[in-house]
């Protein structure tokens, strides 16, 4: 390697690209390892064996077909909400409203299903309409924030956070009011869509189709953001909005489109929560997937493809959380401490980007 490093000033574009890519992987992976080491210190301080801890994560997350399915079940919504953060982040927007878009999307799907199921509409048509409503409802919510950002200069982080509260309150208003199923006395919910209209699981597994939808969208969005002129324009805008404007890029349209994609991804996650799991809309939709998605996208460095393995890693952490509580007698917050630690170390490690010589060698500096 050394001869390439020294001898390739400007030579070998592929080496440069390879090293740049390596940097993108090495820094987050390094951050993960550092977090794991720091967390081991934390465990030792509690008198627990870190090796047991990591062995249990392996056992609970990956070691058996049950564990893998449990991990994937938990990863499914995280892929979609991770994408919901990653896409607008590419254009420089920090939109943290995936939770609200998920809830509103799930609610819209459940609400539109009520008359359709009542009229015994064809299953495929009903599913299609539910998906459309879920994605549109989610997109509408984030587009409000996108428009406020572009037209009025309102900070999109604040507006998406506040819109999340509005979305949850809106769902509660209808679920506890006019759309409440009279049979749901104890847990206000919409009328159940019934098993016939529910989305099944991927054959041979207990994992619902939301996982497949997440995988497909991750690939599609990767191509959109990294292989099309739209994606290029979005990334230019993310890098320098003024320059983008000066170049005549349609910044407003780009922002609104990215915001819409974000909300649609989260809305779709909401659809699967309703159509694959709960069968109705109720407070169970507010499960925090939207917020965990932020963490996932950060660790994936906003890359749609990287969102998938990171979501699976977080799914595994969640899946093994219970096992760790039960076997090691650690509090439930343990996994949250680990996730928080990963987040902080990751943010700190961002500052290393562009500062490690090895990755810069040959880049023309």
């Amino acid at each position: 390697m050394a001869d390439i490093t020294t001898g390739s000033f400007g030579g070998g574009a592929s080496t440069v690209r390879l090293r740049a890519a390596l940097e993108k992987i090495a820094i987050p992976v390094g951050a993960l390892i550092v977090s794991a080491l720091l967390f081991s210190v934390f465990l030792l301080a509690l008198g627990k064996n870190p090796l047991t801890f990591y062995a249990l994560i392996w056992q609970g997350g990956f070691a058996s077909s049950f564990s893998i399915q449990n991990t994937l079940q938990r990863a499914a919504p995280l892929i979609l909400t991770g994408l919901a953060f990653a896409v607008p982040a590419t254009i420089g927007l920090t939109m943290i409203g995936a939770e609200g878009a998920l809830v509103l999307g799930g609610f819209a799907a459940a609400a539109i299903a009520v008359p359709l199921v009542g009229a015994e509409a064809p299953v495929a048509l009903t599913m299609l309409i539910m998906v459309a409503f879920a994605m549109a409802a989610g997109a509408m919510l984030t587009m409000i924030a996108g428009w406020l950002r572009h037209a009025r200069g309102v900070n999109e982080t604040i507006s998406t956070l506040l819109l999340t509260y509005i979305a949850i309150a809106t769902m509660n208003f209808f679920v506890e009011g006019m759309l409440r199923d009279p049979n749901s006395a104890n847990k206000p919910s919409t009328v159940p869509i019934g098993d016939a209209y529910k989305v099944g699981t991927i054959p041979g597994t207990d994992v619902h189709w939301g996982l497949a939808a997440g995988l497909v969208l991750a690939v599609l969005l990767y191509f959109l953001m990294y292989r099309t002129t739209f994606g290029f324009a979005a990334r230019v805008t993310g890098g320098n909005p003024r320059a983008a404007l000066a170049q005549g890029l349609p910044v407003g349209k780009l922002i609104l489109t990215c915001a819409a994609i974000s909300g649609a991804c989260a809305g779709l996650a909401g659809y699967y929560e309703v159509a694959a799991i709960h069968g109705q809309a109720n407070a169970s939709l507010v499960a925090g997937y939207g917020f965990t998605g932020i963490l996932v996208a950060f660790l994936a460095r906003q890359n749609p493809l990287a969102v998938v393995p990171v979501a699976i890693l977080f799914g595994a952490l969640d899946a093994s959380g219970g096992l760790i509580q039960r076997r090691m007698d650690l509090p439930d917050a343990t996994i949250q401490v680990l996730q928080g630690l990963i987040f902080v170390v990751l943010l700190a490690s961002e500052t290393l980007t562009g500062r490690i010589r090895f990755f810069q060698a040959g880049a023309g500096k």
Partner: protein
Amino acid sequence: MLETKISRRSILKSGAAGFAAAALPLGFATRAMAQTPVILGVVYVGPRDDFGWNQAQSVAIEVLKTVPNVTVIEEENVPETDAVTQSMESMINLDGANLILGTSFGYFDPFMIDLAKKYPDVQFRHAAPLWNDTMPMNLGSYFAYLNQAHYVNGVAAGLSSPTGKLGFVAAKPIPTVLSNINSFLLGARSVNPAATVQVIFTGEWSMPVREAEAANALVDAGCDVLTCHVDGPKVVIETAESRGVKCCGHNADQGPLAPNGFITGAEYKWVTIYSMFADMLAKGETLPNVVVGGYHNDMVQNSAYGAGATPEAIAAADAAIAALKGGMPIYVGPLKDNQGNLVIEGTMDNYDPVLDGMSYLLEGVIGSTT
């Protein structure tokens, strides 16, 4: 549905027959589980030290840990979402759990019903009166009617409050909560016919900030005794104490939190149920599908009286407890709701299934369910 409930009521009326016998009329003879060791998974919705619902459960579960062939595994802070399915499946598949206790209301439908179908060899029991005989037989309910203890709270509060204006911070307008509010009012009115209960719903089982706001608002409105039905009453009790008003507890003993104003509190006595479970498991028997009760079979209790309780209040509350143990009905008609509609005509048995569908606030309660 109705059939089950009627049989349940008849069982309860037979009262003293005891729990094991209570299962028999439903037609579920206890089946020997032989010498199979029991791996018991317990799932909680919040932290086990919340001064409330989860703590009350967790403290009582300890009794099951003393049974020789029972291993208890516990998981806390499991939300009422798909997460509970995944936690319970993990207990079954990775720890070999063969008996699961779900201790939060929202775990039951659809999660535990679906799991009971998927794992017919695993026994599931849930802490709310929701099971009926159309559901899987390896599933069941256990529950205590806490409104009886809230009635006693009301009696003591009615005689400890100078103004007769009582405040109630409630989570959600669902039947169990409404019954606690209404019973609290009826208890207070039994000793002070002019007493009122002002209620504020927070909308969530656990929302400490809103609970504090509601408690402050009630004190500002002139209430001089506060009580609540939320998962963790700590915030309401501490707010009442710091504002210098009296309070009644809920779920667990909050006496230590309010050394000056605590009157008494409505507590579950889960240990009665779990001791019975422990006995049955030690003998290798299958748990009954339905276990319910209240004061008459020692499944609820009131916290030790605090400094806020006046001597008259203590005497009247003790008398009310004795009367409830003897089966005194709480809902004696005619009773109107606070909209003026006649909602209860005659005398209702304390376990009448009609009461499980309560959807109104009685006249004397200030507030609305919507």
